[in-house]
């Protein structure tokens, strides 16, 4: 199955996890986080698209687990409500604070993992092409693709300008005020060159009639594949959980 065919069920899965993050108890959320981390290794559709994406995901998991632990502990120390559940170096940990921290951390991790796993397993150009198929105007699709091009170029350009200004004697290593002034000596040529480049690119786009080109017609769907039914199933499950939580909340 191609990466683009996988997109509707993956998006539905992200929506399902968002619903879970706001409706289910924190213990289930923590369990779902664990499943997501395991899914990154076992489910083909959730595997990172490149080794760089895999490294970014692993780094984020380690970082977020450290932050989640810190958040839980800090809340347990600073929110002094409920029974004392333990002591670390003579500092009391309070139950209410610890629970608040655990709830917050599991929700944050579930939301973050779901989004990050979607993006590390989906090449951005594929996602943009999918959005265009679903009705995103061509100029917005081009905007996102151009941004990816600039994102590749900009760090090098910034580095070149920085070195050039340093060679010309700009105070890039002096005091705070001098360094803030040096900020303009980097930003000004960067913005100026980008305007010049934008005018050239804009003229080229207009000459080719890109901005006045009629939108491509939508491809006719050839029957309903199993990804369609998977998407419907996941979304239905999300709606059931959401409806149950709303009813439960209304009853009290």
């Amino acid at each position, binding site marked *: 199955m191609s990466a683009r065919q996988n997109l509707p069920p993956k998006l539905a899965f992200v929506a399902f996890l968002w619903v879970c993050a706001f409706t289910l108890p924190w213990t289930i959320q923590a369990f779902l986080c664990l499943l997501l981390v395991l899914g990154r290794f076992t489910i083909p559709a959730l595997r990172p698209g490149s080794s760089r994406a895999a490294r970014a995901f692993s780094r984020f998991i380690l970082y977020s687990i450290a932050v989640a632990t810190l958040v839980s502990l800090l809340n347990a120390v*600073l929110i002094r409500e409920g029974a004392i559940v333990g002591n670390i170096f003579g500092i009391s940990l309070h139950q209410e604070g610890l629970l608040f921290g655990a709830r917050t951390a599991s929700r944050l991790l579930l939301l973050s993992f779901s989004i990050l796993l979607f993006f590390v397993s989906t090449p951005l150009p594929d996602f943009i092409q999918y959005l265009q198929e679903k009705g995103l105007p061509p100029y917005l699709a081009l905007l996102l693709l151009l941004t990816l091009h600039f994102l590749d170029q900009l760090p090098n350009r910034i580095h070149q300008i920085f070195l050039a200004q340093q060679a010309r004697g700009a105070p890039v290593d002096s005091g705070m005020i001098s*360094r803030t002034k040096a900020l303009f000596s980097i*930003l000004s040529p960067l*913005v100026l060159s980008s305007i010049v480049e934008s005018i050239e690119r804009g003229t080229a786009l207009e000459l080719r009639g890109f901005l006045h080109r009629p939108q491509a017609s939508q491809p006719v769907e050839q029957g309903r594949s199993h990804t369609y039914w998977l998407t419907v199933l996941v979304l239905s499950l999300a709606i059931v959980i959401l409806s149950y939580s709303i009813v439960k909340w209304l009853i009290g």
Partner: protein
Amino acid sequence: MSKSIRQRIAEEMTGAALPFVAFCIALNLTAGQITAALKIPLYLDSIGTILVAVLIGPWSAVICGSAANLLAAALGNPSMIFFIPVVAVIGAFTGFLARLGWFRKWYLVALGGLLQGILAAAASAPISAYLFSGVMMAGTDFLVLYFRSVGNTLLNSVLYQGLTSDPADKLVSYLIVFFLTKNLPLRLVSRLRGASNLRTPDRPS
């Protein structure tokens, strides 16, 4: 007959605007590299949005901020996706101020930056409080915890944290954009839709 949002966006995204907005989205995402290289304690993560709001228009600025947050989420900062409404507010408000001519005088720019900071703090506080319980995996989380520990509610704590950091950051971003646009040659700026936002009667194009 009033135009639809899609028509207004399409009207702004013509000619040089499209590549320039793309550049500004990338600038939002990489401005941190410049401040890190110069060791300046600033984020400047909305400088591209402000530039677009002034030089192109409010709708393009909303698109610029939203796309930057979407791509930031894709590139490893997933919580940014939930703050798209905040950057939309920043883009729309800056574009509105620019159309009023506030980017012609430095003191109006400074006042606009402070107002923007307050607005951004107010817009982000409910998202940060209700979605993330005030935890954004950043250094400012300690400030939220401090405000909570002295007896404030979660929403108030997040709002106070925002009010201590956002106005200063937006003030600096606004002033940087003001001085940047002031030094740009009018011959080039006049090719962009928002050139009239910067032109004063005593400054011929």
